[in-house]
């Protein structure tokens, strides 16, 4: 058996801009309005794949599958689905997405926007250059919990248990033992850092560059540490 390469793989957060369509009941009427739109702008959906928002739609599974089929049959590519019952997800269906954030539509969109309920949603938030409030956590982060703060730093005045995950767009400060996984700068910030009082982490990552517990210098184990990127390389140092 060949040995797999051990270099790290980059993964980054990137934000994309996508249109969302929100069908309304009765579906047959909405489909008729959609057909009208397609007659007026036949090429519109071939340029734009969409996110399907079924958040407040009282649909059952067969209604949902029928809706997807109706869109597919009209040549409308569905990038993802928002607000659907997670039990309906399947490998052959578009991915189910977490809720997006509404943003104003840019001026470059075609003028025929008028009739339809086309809401623009960002697929992932961009890293803010302004100040964003940190997320404070004063209770221990338990095994199996995942703490996510896509807008700023996370400050934990306790320990992070083995089997827990902390993911921040900014830096991560753990005033306790870091025993789980910590991923700072997860949305494209190379200057983010991780601080902890006792480094016992299973995995540490800054902006996609990561090290597992095996790769961390054993001399730093259980010591106060600071993790940062310098020239794209991860540096883990004792922090007194």
């Amino acid at each position, binding site marked *: 058996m060949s040995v797999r390469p051990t270099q790290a793989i980059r993964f980054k957060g990137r934000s994309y801009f996508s249109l969302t369509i929100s069908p309304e009941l009765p579906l047959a009427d909405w489909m008729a309005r959609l057909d009208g739109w397609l007659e007026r702008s036949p090429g519109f959906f071939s340029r734009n794949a969409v996110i399907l928002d079924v958040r407040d739609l009282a649909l059952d599974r067969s209604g949902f599958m029928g809706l997807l089929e109706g869109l597919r049959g009209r040549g409308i590519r569905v990038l993802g689905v928002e607000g659907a019952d997670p039990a309906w997800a399947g490998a052959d269906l578009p991915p189910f997405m977490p809720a997006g954030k509404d943003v104003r539509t840019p001026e470059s969109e075609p003028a025929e926007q008028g009739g339809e309920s086309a809401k623009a949603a960002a697929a992932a938030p961009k890293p803010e250059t302004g100040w964003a409030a940190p997320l404070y956590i004063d*209770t*221990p982060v*338990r*095994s*199996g*919990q995942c703490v996510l703060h896509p807008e700023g730093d996370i400050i934990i005045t*306790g*320990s992070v*248990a*083995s*089997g827990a995950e902390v993911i921040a767009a900014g830096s991560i400060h753990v005033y306790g*033992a870091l*025993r789980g996984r910590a991923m700072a700068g997860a949305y494209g910030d190379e200057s983010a850092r991780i601080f902890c009082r006792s480094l016992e982490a299973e995995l540490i990552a800054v902006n996609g560059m990561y090290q597992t517990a095996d790769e961390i210098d054993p001399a730093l184990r259980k010591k106060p540490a600071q993790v940062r990127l310098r020239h794209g390389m991860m540096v883990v140092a004792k922090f007194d």
Partner: protein
Amino acid sequence: MAKVLVVTSGKGGVGKTTSTAALGAALAQSGQKVAVVAFDFGLRNLDLVMGAERRVVFDFINVAQGDANLSQALIRDKRVDTLYLLAASQTRDKDALTEEGVKRVIDELRERFDWVICDSPAGIERGATLAMRYADTAIVIANPEVSSVRDSDRIIGLLDSKTLKAESGEGMEKHLLLTRYDPARAARGEMLSVEDVLEILSIPLLGIIPESQDVLKASNVGAPVSINATSSAAAAAYIDAARRLCGVPVPMTRPSEKVSLFGRFFGRRAA
């Protein structure tokens, strides 16, 4: 109105059923009206440990589905007359239960008893989440061993998210019962120390139960260890833990290695 306790752990085999029976018996012996309730549907261990396996007619699921009333299903203990058992079904499993059914049974038990102790099954699936859902207080059982402690940490996370107390913002009162503690192995570093466990779990300590052969003997004869072997260290520790649950400030005794005079002169025995 009763206090509803859930005895849970995450990891299997750490002493939930043993502790449910021992704490229930200790509380009942001090005069309180106690019901111990089994939630390991499909498996059924509590009735064996209580010595009631040959007297089960109706079980939890019968009561929840209305086939029998609670008085018909509750089994009174032969040794302590304020102690009752509600057994789990062996032939039907947790899918036969609904949240409303469980709530109804627990509410009815609340009216009749001072303490309702729910013996949770192992794991984090529906059986365990059902057992904890309507509880007021949780007793988290852990052995001083890494995988048990990690699983207990996970279950504490679930206690803070999947229970009515957590959802209402009140937060569930949690206590740690450290079981199967072997002081010799802790001293040699083979087992986690009490301080290590408390540092990881960060919940108040209810008691430390030493590893004891009396536990297996008691479950084989079908008696809670706090009734069967009252002179054993384990039984004494359970009795102290029960008193702490009632608010009595009993000082925590750390089980220590008993070294005989012979041992003191000749040092540790060869491994």
